[in-house]
């Protein structure tokens, strides 16, 4: 028993008022006149006794009223462990992100959660969630301790990257449906990299009382040296070509909180160590190690870069990826019979890009008996007049997943129809007539064709090499059905992308020779051809590596679902098929949730082997500083006093305020006092 506002007890001085009125102030009863006392007799003893008794009751009621009101303001409380906590939901959130695999963090967190669960009153409801990339609800709110316990014991670590911003975001979403008071217990390693960019994203709703349970208790423990393979750069596809250089695998070995040391890095292909290098890693720094690829078997190879870290977090010592080795694929280049420049420029660029493609150049009139399905992709350069059989074959080819680069060239001026796209040329801009030219205006750098250009050595998006290209001639088409990747300065669409069926068609409204523009003379042309060919062939999707929780597109979004829809097939790292039969027919995309190799067969029939790695930010085990944690817990409740009260409640029995009961009792006493006092007043009136 105690008082939350003991200063109000000073109001007990108010007790002096009824004491003065009843005991100190002398009662003067107004005498009542009568004609004669002839027939009256004295009755003093009885009257005095009754009066004193009644005044005593009134005095007691008034004293009690003052006392109760003062007590109510002083806010008395009692410590009640069970009754108080029953009203609040105990929410146990266990961080099972990738970093929790380090040491015994996850088991420690589960044990702490079980301890909290054991200390809860049996009638209090509790709920268990895990925090990975998203907040996952494992149980509904229940009082069943056994179910909660078994759920906690069954929590497995994931490969996801945790994010406290997602925690607060998920809890806010839950809070929109229910506003009940919640005691949130978070069991985590409090990794610094799990913080959102903005601390405001971590603010919890006011009905949450946050209690943090860091699995790393002391500052000495928190500095855990950890080496990891931070990134791997490897060609996803590897083809033998006589004149190309041998590709190599480059990996970055990083150390977090480490001293300078020599690590051994190995390239393992299909379980066999392919090469081993010693690498000097500076203190808390990074080092690059390079492995030449020489003898990779044909088909998909499961590769990994492995280091000997000898640290407590061994799971992040490898980085996996896949390489597909194949014969060079052929590219069909259809051009005007009179045009010899465009195949020359395009072929040169393709060769310079070290891409594993071999270009086959034919003129348009030779294409009638060509089957485009044999080619990785097709380029129609200035060849808008095609044999109809070939045009139909191209349309079918695109629908089944093939891709075509249509270059309008100069023939668009007298041939309004654009094959495959079924578009017509609305106008032709010939800038050279006025001895002028146009340059690139707006560019969509998010598109894979131009995005890669940016990342390869260009300093900024505004100076990608395209700005110096002069365009003299461009066709005008309606871009409303397409994704416009680039426009000229006057707004004329230059590069358009349209998805048809499972395939893509890129439309370049200028030409590939050096007549309509001087693009082939610029270095950016090689990068453009390289990445356009990669994009059109779809090679990037089939191998290489991804991050955990990234999505992979299984089929084109515009594909109409039907009974004959092609099923996709996914085999996860454990060898299971995560998609049901129905999902395999309908799913548009798939989230790669586990680290390891995924085998995927896409809807267009292409096979892929993708290595999935955890986000390397999880390898930085540095915890959040204490002052930020204090700030976070402070942001979840309103007042410091309330917070202290709540944290005290988490440790020991809670306080149950009694002011409401005291106030109700005071109300009853006030009513009784009114009745008794009214009786007395009535009697005094009568006496007057």
């Amino acid at each position, binding site marked *: 028993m105690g008082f939350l506002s003991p200063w109000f007890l000073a109001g007990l001085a108010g007790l002096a008022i009824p004491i003065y009125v009843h005991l100190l102030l002398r009662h003067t*009863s107004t*005498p*009542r*006149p*009568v*004609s*004669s*006392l*002839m*027939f*009256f*007799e*004295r*009755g*003093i003893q*009885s*009257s*005095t006794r*009754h*009066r004193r008794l009644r005044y005593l009751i009134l005095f007691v009621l008034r004293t009690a009223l003052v006392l109760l009101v003062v007590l109510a303001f002083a806010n008395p409380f009692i410590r009640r462990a069970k009754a108080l906590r029953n009203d609040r939901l105990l929410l146990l959130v266990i961080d099972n992100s990738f970093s929790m695999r380090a040491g015994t963090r996850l088991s420690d967190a589960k044990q702490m959660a079980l301890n909290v669960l054991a200390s809860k009153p049996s009638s209090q409801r509790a709920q268990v969630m895990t925090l990975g990339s998203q907040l996952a609800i494992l149980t509904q709110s229940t009082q069943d301790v056994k179910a909660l316990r078994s759920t906690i014991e069954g929590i497995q670590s994931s490969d996801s990257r945790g994010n406290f911003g997602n925690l607060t975001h998920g809890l806010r979403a839950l809070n929109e449906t229910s506003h009940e008071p919640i005691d949130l217990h978070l069991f985590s390693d409090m990794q610094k990299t799990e913080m959102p960019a903005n601390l405001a994203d971590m603010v919890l709703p006011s009905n949450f009382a946050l209690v943090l349970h860091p699995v790393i208790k002391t500052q000495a423990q928190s500095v855990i040296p950890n080496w990891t393979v931070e990134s791997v750069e490897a060609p996803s596809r590897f083809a033998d070509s006589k004149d190309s250089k041998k590709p190599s695998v480059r990996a970055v070995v990083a150390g977090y909180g480490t001293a300078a040391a020599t690590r051994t890095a190995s390239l393992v292909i299909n379980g066999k160590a392919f090469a081993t290098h010693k690498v000097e890693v500076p203190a808390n720094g990074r080092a690059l190690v390079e492995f030449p690829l020489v003898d990779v078997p044909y088909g998909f190879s499961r590769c990994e870069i492995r280091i000997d870290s000898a640290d407590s977090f061994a799971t992040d010592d490898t980085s996996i990826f896949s390489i597909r080795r194949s014969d060079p694929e052929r590219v069909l280049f259809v051009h005007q019979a009179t045009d010899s420049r465009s195949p020359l420029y395009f072929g040169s660029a393709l060769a310079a890009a070290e891409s594993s493609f071999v270009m086959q150049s034919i003129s348009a009139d030779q294409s009638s008996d060509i089957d485009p399905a044999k080619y990785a992709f097709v380029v129609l350069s200035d060849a808008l007049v095609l044999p109809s059989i070939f045009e139909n074959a191209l349309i079918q080819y695109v629908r089944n997943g093939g891709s075509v680069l249509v270059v309008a060239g100069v023939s668009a001026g007298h041939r309004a129809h654009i094959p495959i796209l079924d578009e017509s040329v609305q106008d032709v801009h010939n800038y050279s007539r006025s001895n002028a030219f146009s340059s690139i205006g707006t560019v969509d750098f998010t598109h894979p064709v131009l995005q890669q250009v940016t990342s390869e050595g260009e300093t900024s998006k505004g100076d990608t090499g395209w700005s110096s290209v002069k365009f003299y001639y461009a066709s005008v088409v309606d871009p409303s059905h397409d994704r416009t990747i680039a426009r000229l300065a006057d707004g004329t669409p230059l590069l358009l992308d349209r998805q048809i069926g499972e395939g893509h068609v890129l439309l370049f409204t200028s030409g590939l020779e050096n007549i309509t523009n001087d693009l082939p003379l610029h270095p950016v042309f090689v990068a453009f051809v390289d990445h356009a060919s990669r994009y059109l062939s779809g090679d990037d999707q089939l191998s290489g590596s991804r991050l955990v929780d990234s999505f992979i597109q299984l089929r084109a979004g515009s594909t109409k679902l039907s009974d004959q829809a092609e099923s996709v097939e996914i085999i996860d790292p454990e060898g299971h098929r995560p998609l049901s039969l129905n999902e395999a027919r309908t799913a548009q995309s798939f989230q790669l949730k586990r680290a390891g190799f995924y085998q995927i067969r896409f809807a267009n029939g292409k096979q892929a082997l993708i290595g999935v790695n955890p986000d390397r930010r999880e390898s930085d085990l540095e915890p959040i500083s204490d002052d930020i944690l204090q700030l976070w817990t402070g942001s979840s409740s309103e007042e410091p006093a309330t917070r202290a009260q709540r944290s005290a409640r988490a440790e020991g029995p809670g306080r149950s305020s009694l002011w409401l009961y005291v106030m109700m009792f005071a109300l009853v006493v006030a009513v009784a006092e009114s009745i008794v006092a009214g009786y007395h007043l*009535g*009697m005094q009136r*009568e*006496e007057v």
Partner: protein
Amino acid sequence: MMQRFLDPVILASISSLDLLAKTVVDGFVAGLHRSPDFGFSQEFAEYRAYTPGDDLRHVDWNLFARTERCYLKRYRGETNSQLTILLDASNSMKFASNRPGSGPPSKMDYARFLAASLFYLAIHNQRDAAGLIVFDDEVRNYIRPSTRQGQMHRLLAGLEAAEPRARTNLAKPLQHFQELLHRRGIVIIVSDFYEAPQSIVRTIEPLRFHGNEVVLFHVLDPMEIKPELRGPAILVDLETDRRLEVIPEYARKEYRKKIDSHIDQLRSLTQGAGMDYHLLVTDQPLDAALREYLAIRQGGR
């Protein structure tokens, strides 16, 4: 309908005693109009055969003209009486159970209304001489009975001036009463009679010996007959200023027995002594008192 004008609660709102008395008496007389038992002084009573010596003024000449016989017309109430009201103006008479204006008037006011009404009835209706003696423990005011012009105003002024004071003592002013009441008539004593009945009767009895018709109008407040106390109270005697703490149980039981016994005893003793006694409660109309007066007038004629 007419009772409404006799209700003391309504009369208390009339400030002028003159108007009050006129209201009461006119209302009372109008209410009596159909009664065959009562008549007035100018009212025809009977014919009587003329005998020598009779006053010729009373001969009914109309009858003589028709029948050639001499008859005398006789009227009721030809004789005048003398009304003297002895008004107790002691302190006990100012008792009223209610606040002024909210209920029955005080006993003094009631007594004033009563006296004024009786004077009006006597002077205007009966042509009687009327006088007033105001007393407490001595005679404070005496207005000689008279039928002179302006007597009514003098009497009413005497009533107005009669403010309660001192205490009742019948024995002391009695000798003065006997000196003042030379002629036999009707003596009405209006008082609350807070004295022993034997003492009262013994004091008043000598008035009767002079041939007066003596009537006691015992004026009491309703709360004096049935006092109601919700709690113990300190009571103050209006005449002696003596204080007494009284409990409600006593007021409910013992007191009522005593006051009832007092009234009964007073009534039996006065009637035994040949006097009339009437208990007048201040919340009752005045007609009972007026009726009593007329009955005495008829009996005394």
